[in-house]
C-alpha cells in the first residue's frame, strides 16, 4: 500500500493560478457593475432591468449577483451529438475538441493554389476532408460562400457542411432569420425538433464587439439559441492595445465581461441554456494594425481564458491552428503547431480556427490537414506519462538486464503501439531512401493528402427525407429573399 499518492493522469499545464483567476473574476464583476456594458437590444435590456440591472440608455450596469446566478445556472457539462449517432462531444472541464474556423472571404484553391473567393462546393469539400481527419472533431466552414444568393450564404454553407459530415458544426449567420433556418436544417437532420432537443447536433457562434458592446443581431441570436436549446458560443475577438487593454490580464477581464453579458442574457431567457464562453484573444500589430493570429500572445491568453472558464466551470471556446502566413509554408507550420499544442494542453473545450490563415482572411484546407498531424502530437504530449506497476516495467528491466535488448520482449509488443504516436506524414526515413522515394517535403505530402481526401472520401449518407426537407427550407428562404428584395426595389 502506497499512501498519499499523487498522480498526474495527464500532462499539467496552467497559465493562471486559482488566486489569479479569482482576482480577474472579481474584476470582471466590478467592470460589469461599475463600468457597465452596452446592450443594443431593447428586449434584452428590459429583461436585465427587471432582473435588477440598472439601465441608462443602452448602458447596462449588471450587479454581481446576476452574473453569479447565471454562472450557477449555466451547465458545466453538456453533450453535442453527431447527427447520425456516430459520436458525441462532451463539453465539460478539460475535454478537448479541436476543429476549423468560420467565414473567411478568401480560400486557397486546393489545386491551383491560387487565393480566390470561396465557393459553395468548397464548403462541401471542407466538410468531407474534416470528416476524414481523426483529430478534427467539430467543423466550421473556413469561408463565406460567394456564389449563392448573397443573403443566404450562411444557410447554404450550413447545408453543405452538415450534409457532408456528421461531426457537429459550429454555425454562424447574418441575422436571426438565417439562424432560424439553420436550426430547421439541423432539426431535419436530427429527425425532427423533438429529437433535436434531446440530441442537439450543432453549436451556434456569435460575437459581441469589444470593448464591452453587445449588438442587436448578436443578442437576437443568443436569445434564439437559449429558446431552442442550441449551445451558444458567445465569443469576442479581442485586440489588445486596440479595442482592449494591452495587458493580458486587462484584456481577459474585458473579454470575459463581454462573454458574460451574453451569459446573463441567455440564462435570463432560459435557465440552463447551454453556453460556451470564449475565445479569440490577441494583440494588435502596432506596425500594420493586423489582428495577430500566429503570435504567442494569442496562445497565452487563450490558455488564460480557459483557466478562468475551468475555475468557474463554464465550457470554453479556445483558439489554435491558425497563422498569419499567407500560404502553407514553415511559418504556418510553426504557428499552427504552437497554438494548437498550447490550446490542447490548456484544456480548452472547443478549440477553433484550425485552417485560419493570413490573419483570419484566408481559409486554407492544406493547413487543416497539416494540423491534423500536429494535433496527433499534441494529444500524445497531453496524455503524459502513465506511471503504474506494469508501465514502470521493473521486472522487465530485471529480466533483460544490462546489454540486452527489448525488441522481442512481450512487454514491448504490448505497449509500443499505444505509447508511441505514429505520424502519417512526418518523415523519418534514412536520407537515401527518402531521396529515392521522391524526396517529398511535408508541404508536398499535405497537398497530396488533401487532394486525395477531396477526391475519395465520402461523408455520411443523408436520409432522403432530410434532403427533401432541406430543399424545401432553401426554396422558402430564396422566396423570402426575393420578396424582400422586391420590397426594397433594389437588386
Amino acid at each position: 500500500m502506497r499512501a498519499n499518492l499523487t498522480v498526474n493522469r495527464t500532462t499539467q499545464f496552467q497559465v493562471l493560478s486559482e488566486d489569479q483567476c479569482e482576482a480577474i473574476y472579481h474584476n470582471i464583476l466590478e467592470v460589469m457593475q461599475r463600468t457597465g456594458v452596452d446592450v443594443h437590444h431593447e428586449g434584452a435590456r428590459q429583461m436585465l432591468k427587471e432582473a435588477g440591472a440598472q439601465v441608462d440608455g443602452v448602458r447596462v450596469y449588471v450587479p454581481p449577483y446576476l452574473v453569479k446566478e447565471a454562472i450557477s445556472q449555466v451547465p458545466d457539462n453538456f453533450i453535442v451529438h453527431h447527427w447520425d449517432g456516430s459520436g458525441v462531444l462532451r463539453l465539460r472541464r478539460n475535454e478537448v475538441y479541436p476543429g476549423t474556423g468560420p467565414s473567411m472571404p478568401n480560400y486557397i484553391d486546393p489545386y491551383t493554389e491560387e487565393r480566390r473567393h470561396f465557393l459553395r462546393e468548397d464548403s462541401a469539400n471542407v466538410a468531407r476532408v474534416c470528416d476524414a481527419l481523426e483529430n478534427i472533431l467539430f467543423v466550421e466552414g473556413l469561408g463565406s460562400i460567394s456564389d449563392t444568393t448573397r443573403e443566404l450564404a450562411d444557410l447554404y454553407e450550413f447545408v453543405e457542411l452538415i450534409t457532408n459530415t456528421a461531426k457537429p458544426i459550429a454555425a454562424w449567420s447574418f441575422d436571426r432569420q438565417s439562424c432560424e433556418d439553420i436550426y430547421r436544417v439541423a432539426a431535419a437532420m436530427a429527425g425532427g425538433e423533438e429529437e433535436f432537443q434531446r440530441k442537439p447536433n450543432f453549436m451556434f457562434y456569435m460575437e459581441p464587439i469589444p470593448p464591452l458592446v453587445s449588438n442587436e443581431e448578436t443578442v437576437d441570436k443568443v436569445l434564439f439559441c437559449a429558446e431552442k436549446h442550441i449551445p451558444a458560443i458567445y465569443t469576442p475577438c479581442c485586440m489588445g492595445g486596440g479595442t482592449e487593454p494591452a495587458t493580458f490580464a486587462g484584456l481577459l477581464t474585458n473579454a470575459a465581461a463581454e462573454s458574460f453579458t451574453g451569459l446573463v442574457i441567455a440564462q435570463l431567457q432560459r435557465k440552463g441554456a447551454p453556453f460556451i464562453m470564449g475565445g479569440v484573444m490577441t494583440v494588435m500589430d502596432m506596425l500594420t494594425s493586423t489582428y495577430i493570429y500566429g503570435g504567442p500572445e494569442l496562445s497565452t491568453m487563450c490558455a488564460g481564458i480557459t483557466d478562468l472558464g475551468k475555475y468557474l466551470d463554464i465550457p470554453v471556446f479556445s483558439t489554435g491552428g491558425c497563422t498569419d502566413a499567407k500560404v502553407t509554408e514553415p511559418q504556418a507550420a510553426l504557428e499552427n503547431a504552437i497554438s494548437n499544442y498550447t490550446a490542447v494542453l490548456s484544456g480548452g473545450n472547443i478549440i477553433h480556427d484550425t485552417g485560419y490563415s493570413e490573419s483570419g482572411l484566408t481559409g486554407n484546407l492544406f493547413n487543416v490537414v497539416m494540423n491534423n498531424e500536429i494535433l496527433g502530437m499534441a494529444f500524445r504530449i497531453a496524455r503524459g506519462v502513465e506511471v503504474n506497476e506494469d508501465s514502470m516495467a521493473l521486472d522487465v528491466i530485471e529480466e533483460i538486464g544490462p546489454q540486452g535488448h527489448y525488441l522481442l520482449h512481450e512487454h514491448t509488443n504490448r505497449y509500443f503501439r499505444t505509447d508511441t504516436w505514429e505520424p502519417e506524414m512526418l518523415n523519418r526515413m534514412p536520407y537515401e531512401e527518402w531521396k529515392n522515394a521522391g524526396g517529398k517535403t511535408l508541404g508536398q505530402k499535405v497537398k497530396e493528402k488533401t487532394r486525395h481526401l477531396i477526391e475519395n472520401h465520402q461523408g455520411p449518407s443523408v436520409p432522403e427525407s432530410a434532403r427533401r426537407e432541406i430543399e424545401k427550407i432553401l426554396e422558402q428562404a430564396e422566396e423570402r429573399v426575393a420578396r424582400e428584395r422586391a420590397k426594397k426595389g433594389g437588386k
Partner: protein
Amino acid sequence: MSLKRLANAMIEGDVEKGKEVAQDLLEEGTTPKEILDDGVLAGMEVVGERFKNFEMYIPEVLGSAQVMHEVMDILRPKLVSSEGETSKGTVVLGTVEGDMHDIGKNLVALMLEGAGFKVVDIGIDQPAQSFVDAVKKENPEVVGMSALLTTTAPKIFEVIEALKDAGLRDSVKTMAGGAVIDQAFCDENGVDAYGPSATAAMEIAQNFVAEVKR
C-alpha cells in the same frame, strides 16, 4: 532652433512641450506660417517617413497627430485666413449599417487628420442615407466606408447605389476597407479604391484629391 524643438515635440508625441514651444515661438516673433511649415509640418513629415519605414508604431504616430492638433488650435486664430486653410481636402467616413466596429475607421480618421485632411466621421452602424446626407452637407472629395464583417460588407454596395440614386456618385471618389474587404470586392461593387490599411487609405485619399485638383 526652437522650430526644431517643436518638430521634435511632434516626433516625441509630447503635447505639453509642443504647446509650450509653439507659445514661445509666437512670443519670440516667429510668424505662425513659419511655425506651421517648419515646425508642425516638418515634424509630421518625419513621423510619416518613420512610420512607413517601420521605425515608429501606430500609437506613437497617433500621439504625434495629437500634438499637431493641439498646436494648430494655438496657431489657427493667428494665421491669416488663407494660411489657416490647412485642410488638404475633406473625407466623409463611416462604418456601414449593421456594423458597430469602430477602431478601423477611427484609425483611418486619425491617419487622415494627421495628413491634414478634414475628416467628417459619421460614426458606426450608418445606413446608406446617412452617407448621402453627409455628402450633400460636406461636399467632400472622398467617401470612405468601413465594414469588418462578412455579414455587413454587402451594405457597402447599398451606399454606392444610394449615392448613384441621389446623383452624387460622380462628385466623389469612394474607398472601402475592413477585414473582409478586398480589391475584388471593391471592383465588383463599384468602389473606386480598396484600402488594405489605414496608411493605404490615407495615400488613396491623397491621390484622389491630387486627381481632383489637377
